[in-house]
C-alpha cells in the first residue's frame, strides 16, 4: 500500500503541481483543492490503469474517489484485488 501511495503522490507532484513551493500530502484534497481538475482526472486515471494494468470504470472514477492520494490508493487496491 505504501508503495502505491508514494508512486501516486510522486506522479501527482510531477504532473499536476504548478507551484514548486506547494507541499502536498496523502490526504491533500486534489479535486476540491483545485490541483487536478475534472479534465485532467482522465490522464491521472489513464496513468493508474497503465501502471497497474487495471481498468477503472467511469462510474467508479468520480471526483470523490480521486480527491486525495489515499483515496486513489484505496481505489487502485480495490481493482488490484479483483
Amino acid at each position, binding site marked *: 500500500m505504501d508503495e502505491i501511495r508514494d508512486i501516486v503522490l510522486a506522479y501527482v507532484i510531477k*504532473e499536476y503541481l*504548478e*507551484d*514548486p*513551493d*506547494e507541499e502536498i500530502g496523502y490526504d491533500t*484534497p*486534489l*479535486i*476540491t*483543492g*483545485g*490541483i*487536478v*481538475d*475534472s*479534465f*485532467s482526472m*482522465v*490522464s491521472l486515471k*489513464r*496513468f493508474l*490503469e*497503465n501502471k497497474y494494468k487495471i481498468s477503472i470504470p467511469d462510474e467508479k472514477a*468520480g*471526483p*470523490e474517489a480521486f*480527491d486525495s492520494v489515499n483515496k486513489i490508493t484505496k481505489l487502485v487496491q480495490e481493482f488490484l484485488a479483483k
Partner: protein
Amino acid sequence: MSNIGSYDERVKDFSWEISERELEYKPGDVINIGWYCTDRICLKGKGDKLALKYEGLGGREKNYTYNDIRQLSNTIATFIRDLGIQPEERVCMFMDRIPELYIGVVGVLKSGAIAQPLFSAFGDESLLVRLENAETCAIFTQKKHVSKIRKILDKLPKLRHIIIVDDNQKSPLQDREVAFNMEDAERVDVFETYPTLAESPSLLHYTSGTTGMPKGVKHVHYALISQYLTTKWVLDLKDDDIYWCTADPGWVTGISYGIIGPWTMGVTQCVNDMGFSADAWYSFIQKHKVTVWYSAPTAIRSLMKAGDDVIKQYDLSSLRHLASVGEPLNSEAVVWSDKVFGLKFHDSYWQTETGSIMISNYPDMKIKPGSMGKPFPGITACVVDTETFEPIRETGKIGLIAFKPGWPAMMRTYWNNEATYQAKFKNGWYLPGDRAYIDLDGYYWFVGRDDDIINTGGHLVSPFEVESALLEHPAVAESAVVSKPDFVNMEVVKAFVCLKPGFEASEEMDLDIMNFIRKKLSPLAMPQEIEFVPNLPKTRSGKIMRRVLKAQEWGEEIGDTSTLEDD
C-alpha cells in the same frame, strides 16, 4: 413577481433606454464599468453591504463590502497608473478564482486600461499566442502560475510587468516581476476613474477559431447596458439575493455575469475557488444560503451523475431561481432539477462575441425542457438559410442562428483581425456559427455547431490549435482532432494520430501525448482519447477530412466522399 414580469409585454415596448434610465446614463456621458460596479453602489448608500463572499482552498473565507471593493479597486487602479500603464493598454488577469481577480478586473477598468482575462489552467503555448496577439503590457498572476510566464518571456518583448499578487519572498523576483499584495497595500479612498465613453474598449476576451489561432473579442464599456438588464431580467437578481455564478472569470460568463452583472446591481455574490464535487457544491449552497444559481450543463450533468441521495443531506431550500449557460441544456437535466430542487434550470444562450445573453428562458415564462427559449427583448433574431442567408419562415426548419447587429454588448471587432470580424456577417445578419430551428410558439431549439469547433464542458476548443500543438510532440507526424460525444461534457476532444517512423503506439505514448497537450494548451484541450492510425482521410489535394472522422465518432452518415484521396 419576477423582474421581467410578462415577457410578451416587455417585447412589445422594449427599448435599451430602459437600461440607460435605470443606470442614469445619457448618450455622451462618461461610462466606466468599474465605477458602476463599485462607486455608484456606494453612492446609493450600499457601501456596507457585502459585495463578495469568498471561500477558497481549505475553507479559507473572506468577505468584502461594496466599500471594500471600491477602495481596493482604487488601490489596484492607482498601482496600474503608477506603473505607467496607459489607457487602452492590455492588462492580463491570469489568476485562479481569488478576490484579486474579481476586484482586479474592476481596478483595470477604472484605470482605463483594457482587461484581458485568461483561464489560469492555460499552458504556456496558449498563454503565449494570446499575450502576443494582444501585445499585452502587464499581467497579474499568482506565484503558482509564474513559471509558465517565465518560460515564454523571451518571446514577449511588449510584456513590461509581471505582477505577482501573492509573493512570499521565498525566492527572488526575476526579470520584469514585481510583487503587489492587495490586502497589504495602503487603501486608496479616492481615485479619479478614467473617463471612458460608450465606445471605449473595456475587455478583450479570447475565443477559439476553427481554422486560425484564437481571436481577441473586443468589447466596450457601453456593453454594460445589455449586461445589466439581462442580469436583471434573465437571472432575476433582487436586492436581497445571494448569487452564485460558477463560471471562471477566465471566460466571458465569469466576467459578464460573475462580476459586471451582479455588482452593477449591488447584489451580494459568492465565489468558490474549489474544484468540483457534488458534496462541496451542495454544502456551499447550504452554507451561504444561495438564492440564485447560474451554472453550466456540464456541472449539472455531473451533479445528476452523483445521484439524488447526496442532495438529501443538505438544506437547499434557499434556492429560488436556477439558470444555465455554456452549451445546450438537455431536457433530462431540466426535468431532473425540477424533481430534486423543485426548480427548473432556465437555459440561456449567448457567446463571447455577443457579450450578453441573447436567447433565454425567463422567469414566469413556460419552459419547454431542452429548448433555448426566446430572444431577449430588443434582440432581433431568426434562423437563416445556410446558402442564401435569408430568414427561414417555416417552423421546424433548421438554419443558422442570426442576430440583427446593434445591441449594446456586441463585440466591436476581433483584435487585429477585422477581416475575420467582417466575415461573421452575412446579408446584414451576425452569425454566431450555431444551427437551430424555431417551433410554432417561437421557441428556439439548438441543433449543433456549423463548424469543427469543439464545445467541451461549455468551453470552445479549436481543433486547429490542438493539431498545431500535437505537431510539436517529437513522435507525432500528423493528426486530426475532432469531437466525440460525452455524457457530462457534451463533447470531448479526440485525436487521431499518425506517428513518425521509429515511434510505436503504446499506452505510455498515449499518456505522454495527453500530458503534453494538457501542459502546453490546457486540460480542456487535452485529448480524452487518442487513436493511433497509419494514415488520415484526406482530399486529393491533401487536406485532412475531419468531417469523415467526426461522423464516425458520432455514428452519422459520412456524406460525400468523392473528393477523398484513394488509399
